């Protein structure tokens, strides 16, 4: 497909000598919202870390926007348009919220950075009253929205979202859902979301891939996922899947 922004073929990775990913193949089209569903330990976060370059690929290829980025550093990947919102948010704790956003826009020129931050504040108005507060003292939900805003300030074309609902109260999860839905429409950006929250992923994703023991086992129609009774057929243990 000519409009694919990300093509992953035969991707292998792991920690030291322990392999976690055993040959992942998938693609993300431009403007597409793809979800990857799997329970703990299946390799979801490892996949995103490898795509972002924080873990080296031990095999396979990552093609982003037509270029092979498999051997690039995380910073080089980010400069090409990959955005990353990691598990646990990774907010800079001693910087205030505005400075966190500024770091997101640090590689842009002054005018573009200012515009990027203004746009993010319009899209995420919840950030406005907390701009002067240190990142480390914000609530989990505020940090998650800030992490997303910081990522958006870097003007990514593909956002890698790692379990944004983890440790977040239900009302904020609903808000996050609306925010992501609106952003993917307004910015026409591609999103790769890994989650184990069924409602969240099925409400947002155009298609859902299931990851099991380091391999993508099948593709699931989000509509099917919304019907809770068929979940057990797609996942190794439905007990491990958090249904919000």
């Amino acid at each position, binding site marked *: 497909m000519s409009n694919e922004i990300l093509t992953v073929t035969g991707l292998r990775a792991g920690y030291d000598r322990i392999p976690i990913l055993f040959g992942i193949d998938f693609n993300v089209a431009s403007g597409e919202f793809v979800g990857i569903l799997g329970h703990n330990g299946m390799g979801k976060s490892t996949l995103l870390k490898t795509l972002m370059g924080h873990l080296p690929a031990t095999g396979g290829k990552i093609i982003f926007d037509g270029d092979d980025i498999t051997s690039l550093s995380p910073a080089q990947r980010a400069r090409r348009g990959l955005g990353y919102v990691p598990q646990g948010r990774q907010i800079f704790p*001693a910087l205030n919220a505005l*400075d966190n956003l500024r770091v997101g826009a*640090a590689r842009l020129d002054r005018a573009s950075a200012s515009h990027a931050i203004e746009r993010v504040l319009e899209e995420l108005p919840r950030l406005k009253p907390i701009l002067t507060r240190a990142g480390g003292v914000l609530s989990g939900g505020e940090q998650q929205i800030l992490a997303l805003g910081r990522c958006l300030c870097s003007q990514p074309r593909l956002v890698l979202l790692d379990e944004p609902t983890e440790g977040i109260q239900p009302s904020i999860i609903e808000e996050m859902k609306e925010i992501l839905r609106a952003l993917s429409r307004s910015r026409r950006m591609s999103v790769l979301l890994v989650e184990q929250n069924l409602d969240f992923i099925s409400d947002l994703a155009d298609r859902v891939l299931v990851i099991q023991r380091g391999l993508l086992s099948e593709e699931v129609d989000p509509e099917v996922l919304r019907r809770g009774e068929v979940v057990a057929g797609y996942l190794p243990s439905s007990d491990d899947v958090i249904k919000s």
Partner: protein
Amino acid sequence: MVLLQIASAIGNLALVCAGLAVIFGMMRVINLAHGEFIMLGGFAAVLSVHAGVNIWLAMLVVAPLTVAAVGLIVERLIMRRLYGRMVDTMLATWGVSLLLIGLTTTLFGNRVVGIAAPLGSFRIGGYSIGAYELVITLISIAIFVGGYLLLRWTPLGLVARATMQNREMAASLGIEPSRVYAVTFGIGAALSGLAGGLLAPLSGVVPTMGVAYVAKAFITVITGGASIIVGTATSSLLLGSISTLTTFLTTPVVGDVALLVSATIFLRLMPTGITGRIFRGAP
């Protein structure tokens, strides 16, 4: 006159700490070669002046640039592989320290070389003080004010602070951490070199001089706490005042003891340093 002497002592202490505040305070690298970076700055200034370079140029430009270059080489060849491994960085910089002492002793011998202090002195009542010592105090103030402005208000400072807090996340936002670390280490080394260059006319230069500075500098920076600029400036002010006043009343040795004792008391009362209790969040 006593106040001028105290100001001068505070200025000297802050100057000696500046480079370490950057390398240890920001990067959490226990740089045991800090004293030798100061020594190298001293040698660079002295040798330049002996070669006919203007003394101000030698102290303010040649010394910091020379040590920045050495710092960048050390960072590229050694430190880059060891970030996040505190004990390893400590051992590595200790090795660098011994290497630099050995090299300079081989090249220049184990003897004190020096240059005359510029500007002369002036008298107040029955006492005289070198004008140059006050210039050093002013330069120290300029370094700390400049450092504060750089860290707090410039994109470079913001990127440096973010990278030191979470290098993986900074990389995910397009920042090259290895470059930020190299620049930060280079700036820290340059500040140590500047200190060595500026202090050369007052203390002379000898390959083993670093030992006299490194302990004081570490104690002052640690007492300052997490905020490297405000913390180091505040602890220099407090410890420098206590040390100088005690020296006036007794002897320089007792003055040094007073500095150590007061630092111990401060850290007992404020285990995270002065800026762990007050001025929190300042750069």
